[in-house]
């Protein structure tokens, strides 16, 4: 008993250990839920099949193949991460949140761990999108795939951070699901992930500029050479980091406050 009670390590290592435990929990749950595994593959298949199929059918649509596949990959990464973060509402409903909040781990570690867990699931979901891309004869090179894989944690982090703002305000699963759709669907269409946004009106243009997905899609398309980017990679990168930081701080504070200040 004494051995465990006097066990000491630096705070940073302790937080890292907590982050790993939180992330591992989400990954374990993912592998234990066949429904979740199937959905993570099927959902991109449906989205890509539906939207991609229609787009490819219009005159000149064939040239949009790579453009759309990359857009869809980024959209799915963001969407699946955001939906994964909604499990915090499940934890609240089953009172598991109190087990985490009464522990000495930092609230930021909890949130970062959740984002990493959701990132893993989101990256798995890329497989579905790539399969349907293959079926539609849209193939990305290994270099392009590796670049996307390399950037995927960044994309997932901004998605997770944005969703934390909602998690701090929402306590019911029903509302959370609805809110997730509200923050993901407009981004899919306004960010240029699916359709080009060059000719958008002023309002849509402004909206697109405050959406993290715009910078994610532009960054990925730019570095993979699929489309000349609207912004330089550095600008995109800086915008994503800034949005992640701001949303993560606000979201975590809101989440912690909502649990404590009842």
């Amino acid at each position, binding site marked *: 008993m004494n051995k*465990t009670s006097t066990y000491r390590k630096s705070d940073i290592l302790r937080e890292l250990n907590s982050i790993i435990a939180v992330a591992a929990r989400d990954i374990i749950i993912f592998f234990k839920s066949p429904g979740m595994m199937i959905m993570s593959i099927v959902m991109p298949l449906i989205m890509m099949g539906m939207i991609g199929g229609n787009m490819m059918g219009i005159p000149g649509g064939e040239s949009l193949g790579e453009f759309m596949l990359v857009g869809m990959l980024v959209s799915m990464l963001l969407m699946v991460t955001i939906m994964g973060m909604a499990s915090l509402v499940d934890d609240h409903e089953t009172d598991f949140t109190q087990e985490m909040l009464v522990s000495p781990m930092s609230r930021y570690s909890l949130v970062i761990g959740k984002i990493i867990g959701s990132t893993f699931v989101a990256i798995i979901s890329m497989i579905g999108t790539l399969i349907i891309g293959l079926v539609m004869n849209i193939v990305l090179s290994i270099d392009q795939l590796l670049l996307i894989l390399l950037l995927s944690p960044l994309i997932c982090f901004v998605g997770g951070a944005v969703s934390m703002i909602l998690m701090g305000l929402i306590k019911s699963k029903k509302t959370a699901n609805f809110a997730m759709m509200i923050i993901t669907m407009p981004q899919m269409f306004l960010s240029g992930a699916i359709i080009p946004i060059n000719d958008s009106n002023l309002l849509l243009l402004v909206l697109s500029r405050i959406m993290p997905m715009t910078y994610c899609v532009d960054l990925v398309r730019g570095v993979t050479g699929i489309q000349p980017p609207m912004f330089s990679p550095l600008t995109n990168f800086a915008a994503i980091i800034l949005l992640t930081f701001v949303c993560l701080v606000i979201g975590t504070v809101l989440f912690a406050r909502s649990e404590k200040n009842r």
Partner: protein
Amino acid sequence: MSNNVIEVKNLVKRYKGTKKLSIDDISFSVKKNEFFAFLGPNGAGKTTTISILTTTLGKTSGEVKIAGLDINKHDRAIRKKIGIIFQKPSLDIQLTAEENIRFHACIYGVFNYMPTFKLMPKAYRDKVMELTKVVGIDSDALFKSVKKLSGGMQRKLEIVRSLIHTPEVLFLDEPTQGLDAESRRSLWKYIDKVRKQLGTTIFLTTHYIDEAENADNVCIINNGKIAACSSPEKLKESLLKQELILDAKNRDGLIAELSSLNLHFTVNKHIIVPYNKSPQKILAQLKTELSVLKIHEPTLEDAYIEFLKKNNKMEA
């Protein structure tokens, strides 16, 4: 330096959107290594108090110190020193029992996370096996999904989880709810051992008043206010008299004898004679042959009910 590990001064809690105070200006302290019981009816404010002390709920006003640390300034440091068994189950039913314990041990920084039980350090595995044996979780159940475990087994699992990081102060919010008698006894035996070996302070709320009989101090809370705070013995003494229950074939003779000794008594089914110190003195003076002789020692439950009645009358 104060020996108090928990210090609560003028604590007030009002939930958002409510007018009534859930906790109304309560003060108490708990010494290191003390077994402290917090008793009260449903809705009295026990869980609200425990939630504030464990930093999961904000207070409206007042001062709270745990292990000398102010709850406003050092909440994370406090969380390292405490453990809790919640009133409502707070397990992840999608994980196995062991995965729940491992998760807890890792977020408390006691052990480094490893993806399987076998890969976890030997100290962790030994501790898990020791604790599960104490509460009666067999190794089959340990690796089963929590959703396949009975309610009682889930409760046992929560107990193991709360003890895995050997906290300085252990908060137990109705810990034995749903446990069978054998598991309850086994658990209390272990908690007593933990307390003696490690000097762990125990803060208990319970509906089983008999569990508080061995407490060093008991606080009774009612309608958010402290109704009484003392040792179980003093609480019993202050309210209830001990009684001799007597009867005889020659009941009239016994009544006459008690009257001649100037003893106060009441006659119901039997003759009830209250006494303060020792029944020996009374018995030695009686010459009538007794057919019934019982000594009624009041329990903490008797005292608890009396205090609540008294408190409710005062509030009315």
